[in-house]
Protein backbone atom coordinates (compact mmCIF):
# COMPACT_ATOMS: atom_id res chain seq x y z
CA UNK A 1 0.00 0.00 0.00
CA UNK A 2 2.82 2.40 0.85
CA UNK A 3 4.63 1.37 -2.31
CA UNK A 4 1.62 2.32 -4.39
CA UNK A 5 1.55 5.70 -2.73
CA UNK A 6 5.12 6.53 -3.72
CA UNK A 7 4.48 5.34 -7.26
CA UNK A 8 1.50 7.65 -7.68
CA UNK A 9 3.22 10.56 -5.96
CA UNK A 10 5.96 10.72 -8.61
CA UNK A 11 3.66 11.35 -11.59
CA UNK A 12 1.60 13.77 -9.54
CA UNK A 13 4.78 15.71 -8.84
CA UNK A 14 5.50 15.78 -12.52
CA UNK A 15 2.11 17.02 -13.63
CA UNK A 16 1.63 19.70 -11.02
CA UNK A 17 4.95 21.33 -11.91
CA UNK A 18 3.54 24.76 -12.46
CA UNK A 19 6.21 26.46 -10.38
CA UNK A 20 9.13 24.33 -11.52
CA UNK A 21 12.16 26.32 -12.59
CA UNK A 22 13.30 24.07 -15.44
CA UNK A 23 12.51 20.79 -17.07
CA UNK A 24 16.03 19.55 -16.61
CA UNK A 25 15.61 19.00 -12.89
CA UNK A 26 12.68 16.75 -13.40
CA UNK A 27 14.32 13.31 -12.99
CA UNK A 28 15.75 14.36 -9.65
CA UNK A 29 12.69 16.11 -8.38
CA UNK A 30 10.40 13.27 -9.28
CA UNK A 31 12.25 10.86 -7.03
CA UNK A 32 10.74 12.46 -3.96
CA UNK A 33 13.41 10.89 -1.81
CA UNK A 34 16.94 9.79 -2.69
CA UNK A 35 17.35 6.05 -3.20
CA UNK A 36 19.16 4.57 -0.24
CA UNK A 37 21.29 1.51 -0.89
CA UNK A 38 21.27 0.66 2.81
CA UNK A 39 17.58 -0.15 2.77
CA UNK A 40 17.44 -3.91 3.38
CA UNK A 41 20.41 -4.09 5.71
CA UNK A 42 19.84 -1.03 7.78
CA UNK A 43 16.39 -0.10 9.02
CA UNK A 44 14.90 -3.37 7.87
CA UNK A 45 11.25 -2.48 7.79
CA UNK A 46 11.23 0.47 10.20
CA UNK A 47 10.55 3.04 7.47
CA UNK A 48 7.56 2.32 5.35
CA UNK A 49 7.44 2.95 1.65
CA UNK A 50 10.90 1.76 0.64
CA UNK A 51 10.90 0.07 -2.71
CA UNK A 52 13.49 -2.45 -1.62
CA UNK A 53 13.04 -5.80 -0.03
CA UNK A 54 12.87 -5.99 3.67
CA UNK A 55 13.56 -9.23 5.49
CA UNK A 56 10.62 -11.58 5.54
CA UNK A 57 8.54 -11.00 8.62
CA UNK A 58 6.33 -13.86 9.70
CA UNK A 59 2.91 -13.57 11.23
CA UNK A 60 3.16 -14.52 14.88
CA UNK A 61 -0.33 -16.00 14.90
CA UNK A 62 0.24 -18.16 11.85
CA UNK A 63 3.48 -19.53 13.20
CA UNK A 64 2.25 -20.31 16.69
CA UNK A 65 -1.14 -21.39 15.37
CA UNK A 66 -3.04 -19.11 17.72
CA UNK A 67 -6.55 -19.12 16.36
CA UNK A 68 -8.54 -17.35 19.04
CA UNK A 69 -7.60 -13.73 19.57
CA UNK A 70 -9.63 -12.77 22.58
CA UNK A 71 -10.05 -9.26 23.88
CA UNK A 72 -9.38 -10.60 27.36
CA UNK A 73 -5.72 -11.55 27.01
CA UNK A 74 -4.28 -8.11 27.41
CA UNK A 75 -0.67 -9.26 27.37
CA UNK A 76 -0.98 -10.64 23.86
CA UNK A 77 -2.81 -7.58 22.62
CA UNK A 78 -0.42 -5.15 24.27
CA UNK A 79 2.40 -6.47 22.08
CA UNK A 80 0.66 -4.98 19.05
CA UNK A 81 -0.14 -1.66 20.63
CA UNK A 82 2.32 1.23 20.58
CA UNK A 83 3.35 3.27 23.61
CA UNK A 84 0.87 5.91 22.59
CA UNK A 85 -1.92 3.33 22.63
CA UNK A 86 -2.23 3.19 18.83
CA UNK A 87 -2.60 -0.11 17.00
CA UNK A 88 0.68 -0.90 15.24
CA UNK A 89 0.32 -1.34 11.46
CA UNK A 90 0.91 -4.78 10.10
CA UNK A 91 3.83 -3.74 7.94
CA UNK A 92 5.77 -3.25 11.17
CA UNK A 93 4.62 -6.32 13.04
CA UNK A 94 4.40 -8.69 10.08
CA UNK A 95 0.95 -9.95 10.97
CA UNK A 96 -1.09 -11.34 8.09
CA UNK A 97 -4.27 -9.58 7.03
CA UNK A 98 -7.00 -11.81 8.50
CA UNK A 99 -5.20 -11.93 11.83
CA UNK A 100 -4.63 -8.21 11.80
CA UNK A 101 -8.33 -7.65 11.28
CA UNK A 102 -9.24 -9.89 14.19
CA UNK A 103 -6.51 -8.39 16.28
CA UNK A 104 -7.68 -4.84 15.73
CA UNK A 105 -11.24 -5.89 16.49
CA UNK A 106 -10.09 -7.44 19.74
CA UNK A 107 -8.03 -4.38 20.63
CA UNK A 108 -11.03 -2.14 20.08
CA UNK A 109 -13.17 -4.36 22.28
CA UNK A 110 -10.49 -4.31 24.96
CA UNK A 111 -10.38 -0.53 24.76
CA UNK A 112 -14.10 -0.36 25.25
CA UNK A 113 -13.96 -2.41 28.42
CA UNK A 114 -11.02 -0.40 29.80
CA UNK A 115 -8.46 -3.18 29.49
CA UNK A 116 -6.43 -1.12 27.06
CA UNK A 117 -6.26 2.64 26.86
CA UNK A 118 -7.50 4.66 23.94
CA UNK A 119 -4.52 6.98 24.22
CA UNK A 120 -1.56 6.98 26.54
CA UNK A 121 0.58 4.36 28.22
CA UNK A 122 -0.85 0.87 28.64
CA UNK A 123 -0.77 0.21 32.39
Amino acid at each position, binding site marked *: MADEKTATLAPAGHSSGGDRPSGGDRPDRGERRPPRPGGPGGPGGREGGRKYFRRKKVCKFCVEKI*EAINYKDVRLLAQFVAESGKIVPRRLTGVCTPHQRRLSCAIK*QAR*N*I*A*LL*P*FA*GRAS
Partner: protein
Amino acid sequence: MARTYETNRVYELMFIVRPDMVEEEQDKLISTLESAVSSSGGKVKSMERMGKRRLAYTVRRFHDGIYILLTVEGGGALIHELERRLRVTEPVIKFLTVRIDEEQKRLDKIKKLREARRKPAPAPAETGGETAAVTA
Protein backbone atom coordinates in the same frame (compact mmCIF):
# COMPACT_ATOMS: atom_id res chain seq x y z
CA MET B 1 -41.04 -23.62 11.75
CA ALA B 2 -39.51 -24.28 15.16
CA ARG B 3 -37.85 -21.22 16.70
CA THR B 4 -34.68 -23.06 17.55
CA TYR B 5 -32.45 -20.23 16.47
CA GLU B 6 -33.50 -18.18 19.46
CA THR B 7 -31.65 -20.23 22.05
CA ASN B 8 -28.56 -21.10 20.04
CA ARG B 9 -26.74 -17.86 20.56
CA VAL B 10 -24.02 -17.68 23.15
CA TYR B 11 -23.04 -14.30 24.51
CA GLU B 12 -20.24 -13.22 26.75
CA LEU B 13 -21.16 -10.35 28.98
CA MET B 14 -18.37 -8.62 30.81
CA PHE B 15 -19.12 -5.83 33.17
CA ILE B 16 -17.19 -3.71 35.60
CA VAL B 17 -18.46 -2.94 39.05
CA ARG B 18 -17.18 -0.17 41.28
CA PRO B 19 -14.23 -1.28 43.41
CA ASP B 20 -15.87 -0.54 46.75
CA MET B 21 -18.67 -3.00 46.20
CA VAL B 22 -18.97 -5.71 48.82
CA GLU B 23 -18.94 -9.39 47.92
CA GLU B 24 -22.55 -9.96 49.02
CA GLU B 25 -23.81 -7.11 46.91
CA GLN B 26 -21.97 -8.57 43.96
CA ASP B 27 -23.62 -11.92 44.59
CA LYS B 28 -26.99 -10.23 44.82
CA LEU B 29 -26.45 -8.50 41.51
CA ILE B 30 -25.27 -11.68 39.84
CA SER B 31 -28.19 -13.70 41.14
CA THR B 32 -30.58 -11.01 39.90
CA LEU B 33 -29.07 -11.28 36.46
CA GLU B 34 -29.12 -15.06 36.54
CA SER B 35 -32.77 -15.15 37.50
CA ALA B 36 -33.52 -12.73 34.67
CA VAL B 37 -31.73 -15.09 32.31
CA SER B 38 -33.60 -18.19 33.39
CA SER B 39 -36.94 -16.44 33.48
CA SER B 40 -36.63 -15.50 29.80
CA GLY B 41 -35.72 -19.04 28.86
CA GLY B 42 -31.98 -18.65 28.68
CA LYS B 43 -29.19 -20.48 30.39
CA VAL B 44 -26.19 -19.24 32.29
CA LYS B 45 -23.17 -21.16 31.08
CA SER B 46 -20.59 -19.77 33.44
CA MET B 47 -19.84 -16.93 35.77
CA GLU B 48 -16.34 -15.81 36.48
CA ARG B 49 -15.03 -13.13 38.78
CA MET B 50 -11.89 -11.68 37.32
CA GLY B 51 -11.12 -9.68 40.44
CA LYS B 52 -10.10 -6.11 40.95
CA ARG B 53 -8.05 -4.61 38.15
CA ARG B 54 -6.65 -1.24 37.39
CA LEU B 55 -8.61 0.42 34.62
CA ALA B 56 -6.74 1.68 31.59
CA TYR B 57 -8.57 4.99 31.84
CA THR B 58 -10.81 6.71 34.34
CA VAL B 59 -14.42 5.61 34.18
CA ARG B 60 -16.85 7.70 36.17
CA ARG B 61 -13.95 8.93 38.32
CA PHE B 62 -12.88 5.38 39.24
CA HIS B 63 -9.37 4.09 38.63
CA ASP B 64 -10.00 0.46 39.58
CA GLY B 65 -12.87 -1.88 39.06
CA ILE B 66 -14.06 -5.41 39.72
CA TYR B 67 -14.49 -7.36 36.50
CA ILE B 68 -17.19 -9.99 36.22
CA LEU B 69 -17.65 -12.24 33.22
CA LEU B 70 -20.95 -13.93 32.51
CA THR B 71 -21.48 -16.39 29.69
CA VAL B 72 -25.10 -16.68 28.72
CA GLU B 73 -26.99 -18.71 26.19
CA GLY B 74 -30.13 -17.14 24.88
CA GLY B 75 -31.69 -14.85 22.37
CA GLY B 76 -31.09 -11.24 21.53
CA ALA B 77 -34.04 -10.02 23.53
CA LEU B 78 -32.48 -11.57 26.62
CA ILE B 79 -29.33 -9.56 26.13
CA HIS B 80 -31.40 -6.46 25.60
CA GLU B 81 -33.03 -7.08 28.97
CA LEU B 82 -29.75 -7.79 30.73
CA GLU B 83 -28.12 -4.69 29.35
CA ARG B 84 -31.10 -2.60 30.39
CA ARG B 85 -30.72 -3.91 33.91
CA LEU B 86 -27.01 -3.24 33.94
CA ARG B 87 -27.56 0.28 32.71
CA VAL B 88 -29.84 1.15 35.61
CA THR B 89 -27.75 -0.63 38.22
CA GLU B 90 -25.75 2.08 39.87
CA PRO B 91 -22.55 0.17 40.83
CA VAL B 92 -22.04 -1.12 37.28
CA ILE B 93 -19.83 1.35 35.48
CA LYS B 94 -19.19 -0.40 32.17
CA PHE B 95 -20.33 -3.44 30.28
CA LEU B 96 -19.56 -5.15 27.01
CA THR B 97 -21.48 -7.93 25.30
CA VAL B 98 -19.85 -10.09 22.68
CA ARG B 99 -21.53 -12.81 20.70
CA ILE B 100 -19.30 -15.86 20.69
CA ASP B 101 -21.22 -18.75 19.11
CA GLU B 102 -20.07 -18.01 15.56
CA GLU B 103 -16.50 -17.67 16.72
CA GLN B 104 -16.83 -20.89 18.69
CA LYS B 105 -18.13 -22.68 15.61
CA ARG B 106 -15.14 -21.49 13.61
CA LEU B 107 -12.69 -22.58 16.30
CA ASP B 108 -14.31 -26.00 16.58
CA LYS B 109 -14.11 -26.42 12.82
CA ILE B 110 -10.43 -25.60 12.83
CA LYS B 111 -9.80 -27.94 15.72
CA LYS B 112 -11.61 -30.74 13.92
CA LEU B 113 -9.62 -30.12 10.76
CA ARG B 114 -6.40 -30.26 12.73
CA GLU B 115 -7.40 -33.49 14.44
CA ALA B 116 -8.38 -35.08 11.15
CA ARG B 117 -5.12 -34.02 9.60
CA ARG B 118 -3.06 -35.29 12.51
CA LYS B 119 -4.45 -38.83 12.49
CA PRO B 120 -3.04 -40.20 9.21
CA ALA B 121 0.25 -38.33 9.77
CA PRO B 122 1.73 -40.31 12.74
CA ALA B 123 1.50 -43.68 10.93
CA PRO B 124 3.79 -42.89 7.99
CA ALA B 125 5.93 -40.63 10.18
CA GLU B 126 6.69 -43.54 12.52
CA THR B 127 7.79 -45.87 9.73
CA GLY B 128 9.79 -43.07 8.17
CA GLY B 129 11.53 -42.45 11.48
CA GLU B 130 12.37 -46.11 11.88
CA THR B 131 13.85 -46.47 8.42
CA ALA B 132 15.86 -43.29 8.94
CA ALA B 133 17.26 -44.65 12.19
CA VAL B 134 18.19 -47.94 10.53
CA THR B 135 20.02 -46.30 7.64
CA ALA B 136 21.75 -43.74 9.90
